[in-house]
């Protein structure tokens, strides 16, 4: 192609732009009019433009067959840190392949939409400038993450997005719950991150490199032992699961909805949470070598998808329903990766990003208008907010998997691949989950936009959002409507891709994925979705009498779902009782054993031996020396005893 202005070798510019914006806005935001929000938006627009140019360049290379489709190219690298004569080399390297090329447009485009939307949504908020700065920081880290050519750089960016997420979830830190949620998210994902770091170190230990492609080659050549590689890849997956809120780390994502809604749309729906999917997709050739680890990915995905969908059925907070839905859809993606269906997973990631951010932004529009997020307080809003209602419904249909809408195509792909490559039970579980998805989506739409207003005051107060907010909604709605068609060969070719996404993203030894619409299969999937929607309508249309009846039919079950299978309680219990407990044990040891047993106990002991009885205040120095003496004695006795 003709435009060589910016090519694949220049992708490092992409994160640099938002990072510069971050520095500028966070330090000098007070001096700039409007706190610098327009700088953030313009910077992001530039990024989108550059991504477009990179995409064009990529297509050119793709057509010229400069490289095999999946192999991509290490497009840019320099030794960032090289110490100890090659003992420890950290390269700054960028790597662009088809997987990257799916991520880049998603991240940049959704970010742009969210930033534009935020101008309306965050208007008049305290720390307005800081919001845009933090969001830019997030985008910089996320872009760095997806272009990373080596694991260490990836880890760095990985922590960066985690930090940004922490800052943004805790944006309304005056609210205690927001501060708690921020901490919960940070610590939960950090636990996963330690797994990731251990995984990275384990991989490095054998190969001596952090470079992803070299590690993949090493794995394919069988440099690793099977068990060793399994363990390493499971650690790696722990990191992915933490970031992508997969069971058992899923607890943080619903709470993360304490952040501003556009943040939820960007970070907790479209970009950061798919980082785990991206990581597993990136390392999929390695997972292919160790099927046990891949199976774990599959099962975790299945469990999460089903579990989150059931929890979504009963959640009453509009954003939490969407959060559970996100967790569930990420489960779909992991399940697809678990059977090696890279194409389907990335395709679903692609479509999901558009319709889920649309849904979040739509819910943000509702919240903005009514200042309510409980579905019990909403209802009938379609008359007051027609654009929001329409776009939200489009997003919902996409999520539910109704044909023509984007979600249908990608979900259909996943189900199809699961049926072909996975165990039959997996297919059934996901099909049930798909039906559940349709149910709770329908419920959400009905309760929010249809029926009678339940809170008259909020209803009266409601109004359509300003164009700066509805604009992104409309754009995303259009995309949610059409983006699925990219799978068609004709559509793909007209866009420059030979066979749509199917011939772009695939594993070399699986061969390109040729998309064929299997009418029978699609009919089943459609039927599932339609039945789900029908059930939703049946239960929640109008005054939702049946739904209430269903609740009272099995209150325990309802309670189980409302309390999210009591997992949060379990974790809190574990944290309280194990971690703090262990700390308490040490403190207790200090207080009781050293002081009271050391004093009281040995006082009794001493009394027992017939010495004078002495009860004394606690004396610390002798106890400290006792500790030291026991330490020496232990070392010496063990040393000499074992000789």
């Amino acid at each position, binding site marked *: 192609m003709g435009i060589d202005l910016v090519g694949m070798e220049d992708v490092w510019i992409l994160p640099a732009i938002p990072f510069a914006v971050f520095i500028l806005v966070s330090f000098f935001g007070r001096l700039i009019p409007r706190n610098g929000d327009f700088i953030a938006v313009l910077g992001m627009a530039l990024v989108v433009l550059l991504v477009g140019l990179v995409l064009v360049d990529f297509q050119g290379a793709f057509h010229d067959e400069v490289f095999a489709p999946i192999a991509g190219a290490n497009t840019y690298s320099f030794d*960032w*840190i*090289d*110490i*100890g004569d090659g*003992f*420890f080399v950290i390269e700054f390297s960028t790597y662009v392949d088809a997987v990257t090329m799916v991520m880049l447009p998603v991240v940049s485009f959704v970010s742009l939409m969210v930033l534009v939307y935020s101008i309306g949504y965050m208007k008049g908020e305290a720390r307005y400038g800081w919001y845009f700065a933090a969001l830019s920081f997030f985008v910089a880290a996320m872009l760095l993450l997806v272009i990373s050519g080596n694991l*260490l750089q990836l*880890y*760095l960016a990985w*922590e*960066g997005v985690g*930090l940004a997420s922490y800052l943004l979830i*805790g944006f309304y*830190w*005056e609210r205690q719950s927001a*501060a708690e949620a*921020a*901490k919960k998210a*940070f*610590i939960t994902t*950090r*636990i996963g991150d*330690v797994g990731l*770091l*251990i995984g990275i*170190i*384990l991989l*490095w*230990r054998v190969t001596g490199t952090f470079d992803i492609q070299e590690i993949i080659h090493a794995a394919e050549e069988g440099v690793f032992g099977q068990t060793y590689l399994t363990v390493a890849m499971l650690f790696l997956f722990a990191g992915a699961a933490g970031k992508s809120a997969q069971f058992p780390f899923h607890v943080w994502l619903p709470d993360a909805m304490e952040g501003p809604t556009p943040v939820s749309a960007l970070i907790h729906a479209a970009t950061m949470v798919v980082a785990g999917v991206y990581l597993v997709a990136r390392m999929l050739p390695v997972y292919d070598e160790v099927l046990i680890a891949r199976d774990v990915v599959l099962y975790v995905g299945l469990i999460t998808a089903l579990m989150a969908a059931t929890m979504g059925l009963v959640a009453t907070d509009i954003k939490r329903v969407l959060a559970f839905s996100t967790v569930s859809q990420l489960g779909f993606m992991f399940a697809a990766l678990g059977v090696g269906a890279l194409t389907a997973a990335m395709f679903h990631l692609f479509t999901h990003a558009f319709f889920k951010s649309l849904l979040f932004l739509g819910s943000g529009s509702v919240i903005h208008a009514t200042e309510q997020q409980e579905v019990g307080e909403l209802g009938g809003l379609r008359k007051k907010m027609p654009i929001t209602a329409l776009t939200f419904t489009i997003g919902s249909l996409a999520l539910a998997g109704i044909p023509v809408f984007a979600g249908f195509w990608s979900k259909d792909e996943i189900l199809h691949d699961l049926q072909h490559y996975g165990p039959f039970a997996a297919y059934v579980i996901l099909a049930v989950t798909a039906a559940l998805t349709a149910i709770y989506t329908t419920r959400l739409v009905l309760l929010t936009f249809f029926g009678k207003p339940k809170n008259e005051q909020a209803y009266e107060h409601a109004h359509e959002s300003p164009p700066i907010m509805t604009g992104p909604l409309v754009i995303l709605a259009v995309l949610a409507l059409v983006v699925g068609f990219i799978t068609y060969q004709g559509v793909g070719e007209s866009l420059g891709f030979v066979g749509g996404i199917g011939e772009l993203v695939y594993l070399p030894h699986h061969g390109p994925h040729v998309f064929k619409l299997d009418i029978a299969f699609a009919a089943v999937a459609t039927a599932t979705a339609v039945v789900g929607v029908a059930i939703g309508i049946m239960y929640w249309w109008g005054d939702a009498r049946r739904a209430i009846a269903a609740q009272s039919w099995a209150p325990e079950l309802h309670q189980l779902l409302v309390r999210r299978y009591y997992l949060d309680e379990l974790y809190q219990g574990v944290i309280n009782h194990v*971690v*703090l407990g*262990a*700390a*308490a044990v*040490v*403190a207790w040891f200090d207080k009781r054993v050293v002081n009271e047993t050391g004093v009281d106990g040995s006082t009794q002991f001493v009394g027992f031996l017939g010495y004078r009885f002495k009860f004394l205040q606690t004396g*610390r*120095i002798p*106890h*400290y*020396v006792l*500790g*030291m003496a*026991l*330490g*020496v004695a232990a*070392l*010496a006795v063990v*040393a*000499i005893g074992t*000789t």
Partner: protein
Amino acid sequence: MTDLLGNDLNLQYELLGPEIALVITAALVLFADAFRRELKIGQSAIPAISILGLVVALLLSLLWIDENKDFARLVTIDNFTTFFRVLFIAVTVVVIIGSHEYIERRVSHLGEFYSLLLLSTVGAMLMAGARDLLTAYLAIEVMSFSLYILVSLAKSDTRSGEASLKYVLLGGVASAMLLYGLSFLYGVGGSTQYTEIAAALSDGTSTLELPLLLGLALIIAGLGFKASAVPFHMWTPDAYEGAPIPITAYLSATSKAATFALLLRWFAGPLLPAIDSWQWMISVLAVLTMVIGNLVALQQSNIKRLLAYSSIGQVGFMLMAIVTISDQTGSALLLHLSGYIITNLAVFMGVIAFYNRTGREEIVAFRGLAQTNPYLALVITAGLFSLAGMPLLAGFLTKFILFQSVVSGGYTWLVVTALLASTVSLYYYLQVIRQMYMYQPEGDASRWRLSPTGYLATGAMLVGVVWVGVYAAPFYTAADRAIAPLFT
């Protein structure tokens, strides 16, 4: 000149230039303080003289880069020594600049304070340079004695005297243990010279194995005390809490680094042939230290105690490098040590500036600092995040390289333990950060500023934290060159 045994004695006093300069400066400081009225100089003249002396010492120590000489077979001046000389001098300079206000207001006996600070630095420098057990022991005592007194110098604070008493009594026991161990080492190795002990030990000591083991256990206990390794750590939180904050900072930086310098010299030198005997001892201590230090830190409510336990936890990480000692782990340890010191000083300089303003040191007192002084909050946050090992800050990179080298030394299980322990650490660092960012300030919510020197010290440390985090290569190169003489 030759000694009694006919060995060549090199009595080039220039080699000890930095130490001599500092001792002279210490004397000058005492003198200037005593005759301040007669000389008509103000209080700030004393830190100024100290810094001048330190700068002179710094220049003098830079003369010996890439030299490898010894003074009278007692002190080695090689890159290792130079590295630590520079490090210790830099720490002292930062401590003085960052805390002279605090010292003027809250420390009794200004002259003694500064002169002891300088003398303690001399002790630390000699610890790094010693090539003879006797010199090393006396250097330890010079540093420790100064610190015993420095800890007791907080004005009108009874905790200070108590902390000092604990430190001095426990320190006495610890040095008795260390000495007893050294006496066995002398008996087994037949000399107090590092090189000759190494030779004797590698010749085989099968008939003297038990005394050697005993000596090792005692030496590890004595040094474990100085390094505050569990179970010899119990003085640490108390001394940290009772001491004036600059001394707490100094304890956590110089005292720790000097101990590790000594550990490196000993365990990579005379004790290396006996590695099978002590490897497990140190690894047990390392695990205990990192686990207990990080767990107990969770329960703290005083920032100084919190940092004390966090530094105990960090010692656990550093001990791993001693377990798998090699030139790689050695240079990784030096790098981590430098990064850790910069980070820790960043936090402490922040805490000192905060204390100057508020006079409080509980963690809850930090509420709303992000509103009353966002810059200070940023400094402390960067420091704490770096301690917790967040990327792009010093703590992550240096810790990562350290862990990396331990893994390649074959101790993956240690590293896994360390990673788990450091996950716990995030929890308590975050507690402090939350207080600063996620609460409204109590009482006066107006903005306030630091003094110019406060800005200088915190700013320099902040830059250091980010610099090491982003581009550590020059530091590593320095560390690599510093460790080389130990392994040739």
